[in-house]
């Protein structure tokens, strides 16, 4: 049976839809808001901003994080900036231009209405964050400064040195902290979601595990918001934090929330290449570096001279050569693949020949050392600390790495999943970036969802519940979910095999990276789908978790997360195999133009693939939400 999606896109012209929605939305009277309990899971940009705003409105909010403090969420690591269509530079920016850039950057695989709303509220985000005291970079006259970013021809990116994510997250955290102090938000730290509970087709609450005592507990609510981030760590090596995981989204998926476009994962072009076998994560160097750095490799694979001794004539500035109008600022997926191809041809640089140069010599000559230091000083320091080389003197070595996941829980215009009462915000949902996210747009989307979208849409779901009682945690469904979670964690402890969760995670990561990474093929994906169940079976029989379940046990936490990564990895490969086209970050070798660019198939694949859980991770049901483009013109993306 085909599933029919109701994306709840409001009527009217594209530019009027959000206003029309707000005008028609059901509201909850201020005095009644305190009668509703909302659970927010995750305290990154989307979660913290949603919790703060919902509490300001008067709802009772319970916020959950597995960190020791909400301020640790991985939004903090975003470096480069946040986009907004302010047109402060007078260079022709507008809401429509940001909308078009985002749709085009996403290679026409996102929902028009959601993206347009994102562009509209982007301007409010900047105002909001300035009012909260975020110390954005400023010009000497005291006004806000901007810089440009990949995939755009205007300067619309606001930044706070190379720590924009940190400053925005601390801003949102402080707003939430204020509400914690006032009693509007109750905080549960070091507490991890292990299941969601659905009663009579509606999300009734969550089951959590206390990471200090191992205690399993239920929490009931009128609505649940998952703002739990992306699943990039499925690759093992990624730029995600060590604890970032897919469990919350995946457990919700297993209870009926459909998972949209799992194969759409983004590779970031500028990360520090892997240095050795013990490496636990990769570090990103902000894409903003491409504003002033020039990317090149030696023309000859056998050229082993130090970078400064290679004359101009022997260098290939391949992004400038291939994409003259965008040059070093071509979109992320395009730049990443160009680097991969040269490294695959043996033109890579560095001890392992696994990187390309990002060279600032020209920028230092043109702008002077002081300006370069002012713009990128902290990034250069960070690079030197990790790589042991000074980028003021030697070009940085960079290579693409997994960074962001466009896929996520399917949501409608209200950010509600296919389970009524369960919402997904920020990177955890699939909604706005299509097949490829533009730089500086993740921070924008997280804050848009949390500050401006959810607080306006959630009341529509709550208003009809006024005066009705909701199931409490004594309901058998909660007890059953608690028992299942408890049994699951016991089973990890009782397998008593030989391999650690990290060992399995590394092996899983290799399969996914090799077959479902930057470039995918039918054969490779079929191979992955043969290898994954075998390795998963080994995980279920040969896992070793030492220690007990009654105190802090990070090995046990990891086991649960790796279990979910396995199942999600299978869905990713199924999705990549069935999407027989190339679009954005999803590059199938079979589908490319004569120039090696992604070849979309709009006739057959202009849709969202939303996967439905059937009980067997190898046999998900693939549903389709057709994408309709009324305003944007379906065109072949070109950064030439």
């Amino acid at each position, binding site marked *: 049976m085909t599933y029919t999606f109701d994306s709840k896109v409001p009527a009217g012209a594209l530019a009027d839809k959000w206003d029309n929605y707000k005008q028609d939305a059901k509201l909850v009277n201020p005095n009644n808001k305190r009668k509703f309990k909302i659970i927010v899971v995750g305290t990154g940009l989307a979660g913290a901003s949603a919790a703060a705003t919902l509490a300001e409105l008067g709802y009772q909010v319970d916020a959950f994080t597995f960190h020791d403090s909400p301020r640790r969420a991985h939004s903090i690591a975003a470096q480069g900036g946040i986009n907004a269509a302010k047109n402060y530079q007078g260079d022709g920016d507008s809401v429509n231009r940001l909308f078009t850039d985002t749709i085009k950057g996403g290679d026409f695989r996102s929902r028009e209405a959601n993206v347009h709303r994102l562009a509209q509220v982007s301007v409010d985000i900047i105002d909001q964050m300035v009012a909260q005291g975020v110390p954005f970079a400023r010009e000497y006259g005291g006004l*806000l400064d901007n810089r440009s970013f990949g995939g755009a021809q205007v300067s619309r990116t606001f930044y706070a040195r190379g720590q924009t994510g940190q400053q925005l997250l601390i801003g949102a955290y402080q707003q939430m902290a204020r509400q914690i102090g006032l009693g509007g938000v109750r905080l549960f730290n070091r507490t991890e979601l292990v299941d969601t509970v659905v009663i009579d087709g509606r999300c009734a609450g969550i089951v959590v595990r206390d990471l200090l005592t191992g205690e399993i507990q239920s929490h009931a609510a009128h609505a649940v918001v998952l703002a739990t981030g992306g699943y990039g760590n499925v690759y093992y090596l990624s730029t995600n*934090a*060590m604890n970032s995981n897919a469990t919350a989204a995946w457990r919700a998926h297993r209870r009926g929330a459909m998972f949209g476009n799992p194969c759409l994962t983004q590779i970031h072009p500028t990360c520090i290449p892997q240095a*050795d076998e013990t490496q636990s994560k990769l570090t990103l160097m902000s894409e903003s570096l491409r504003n002033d750095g020039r990317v090149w490799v030696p023309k000859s694979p056998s050229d082993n001279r130090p970078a400064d001794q290679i004359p101009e004539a022997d260098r290939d500035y391949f992004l400038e050569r291939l994409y003259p109008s965008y040059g070093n600022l071509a979109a992320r997926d395009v730049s990443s693949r160009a680097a991969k191809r040269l490294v695959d041809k043996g033109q890579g640089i560095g001890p392992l020949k696994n990187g390309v140069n990002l060279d600032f010599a020209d920028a230092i000559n043109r702008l002077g050392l002081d300006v370069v230091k002012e713009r990128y000083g902290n990034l250069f320091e960070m690079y030197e600390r990790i790589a042991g080389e000074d980028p003021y003197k030697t070009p940085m070595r960079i290579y693409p790495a997994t960074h962001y996941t466009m896929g996520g829980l399917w949501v409608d215009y209200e950010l509600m999943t296919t389970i009524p009462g369960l919402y997904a915000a920020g990177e955890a949902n699939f909604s706005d970036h299509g097949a490829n996210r533009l730089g500086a747009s993740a921070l924008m989307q997280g804050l848009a969802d949390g500050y401006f979208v959810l607080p306006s849409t959630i009341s529509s779901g709550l208003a009809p519940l006024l005066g009705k009682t909701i199931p409490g945690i004594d309901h058998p469904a909660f007890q059953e979910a608690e028992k299942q979670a408890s049994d699951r964690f016991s089973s990890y402890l009782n397998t008593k095999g030989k391999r650690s969760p*990290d060992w399995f995670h590394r092996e899983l990561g290799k399969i996914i990276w090799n077959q479902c990474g930057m470039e995918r093929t039918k054969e490779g994906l079929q191979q992955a789908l043969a290898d994954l169940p075998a390795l998963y079976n080994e995980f279920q029989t040969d896992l070793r978790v030492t220690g007990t379940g009654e105190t802090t046990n990070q090995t046990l936490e990891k086991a649960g997360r790796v279990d979910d990564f396995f199942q999600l990895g299978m869905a990713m490969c199924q999705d990549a195999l069935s999407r027989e086209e190339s679009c954005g970050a999803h590059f199938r070798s079979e589908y490319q133009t004569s120039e090696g660019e992604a070849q979309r198939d709009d006739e057959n694949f202009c849709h969202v693939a939303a996967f439905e859980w059937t009980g067997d991770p190898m046999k998900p049901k693939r549903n389709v939400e057709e994408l309709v483009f009324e305003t944007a013109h379906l065109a072949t993306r070109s950064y030439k």
Partner: protein
Amino acid sequence: MSHLQNLTLKVWRQSGPTDAGQFETHQVAEISDEASFLELLDVLNEQLINENKEAVVFDHDCREGICGTCSLMINGVAHGPQRATTTCQLHMRSFKSNDTIVVEPWRAAAFPIIKDLMVDRSPFDRIIEAGGYITAVTGGAPDGNLIAVPKPVSDAAMDSAQCIGCGACVAACPNGAASLFTGAKIAHLNRLPQGQPERYQRTEAMVEKMDEYFGSCTNHGECSAACPKEISVDVIALMNKDYRASKFKSRKEISRD
């Protein structure tokens, strides 16, 4: 890339907050000098799991020096020997073969040990909840360019806003004081025009909340030396100045006169 051989690790193990702890000695035979200090602990934990022993518990997350989750006293120094560096960004090239490395949790009365190397830093959150914010309800903000902020002011606010809340300042302080952490937040917000309306009320509330948990500052300056973001002790002076001013401005005080 080269490798270090034969490292001896003396690691603090403690089963729970009220249990007695002790040092445990472990050997790591080999590790690349490109590995970070936390990757050394990863290798040790993998070894322990292979020996069917419980892994060492330690807090860590982003591993790029920004989230502030990692901690550790390494050979008695908060975040180890390299200046302006968090433990996760400390690389093994700072050590040499045959070294003995002593690894302990943060030592501070306000940060009780949870298990092994993990401590409870939630008093920091309590200080922020007491006043470490600018009240700006979502939706009511004026245009971002309405209030010009002089660049030097914005830059100075950013210098102190860089605090990652790791707690090294408290761990390094002989008194277990949190003045650098609290002062950094006060300096960030009190310097900006947007922070002026709540300036004195914020300072009073935060300082008094801080005093509930932490020791007093006696100007040793160890905090700033240990700070991975090199936040200057000047922020403590600003905090003290504003705290004193807040007492003069306090209406409660005035009404008593």
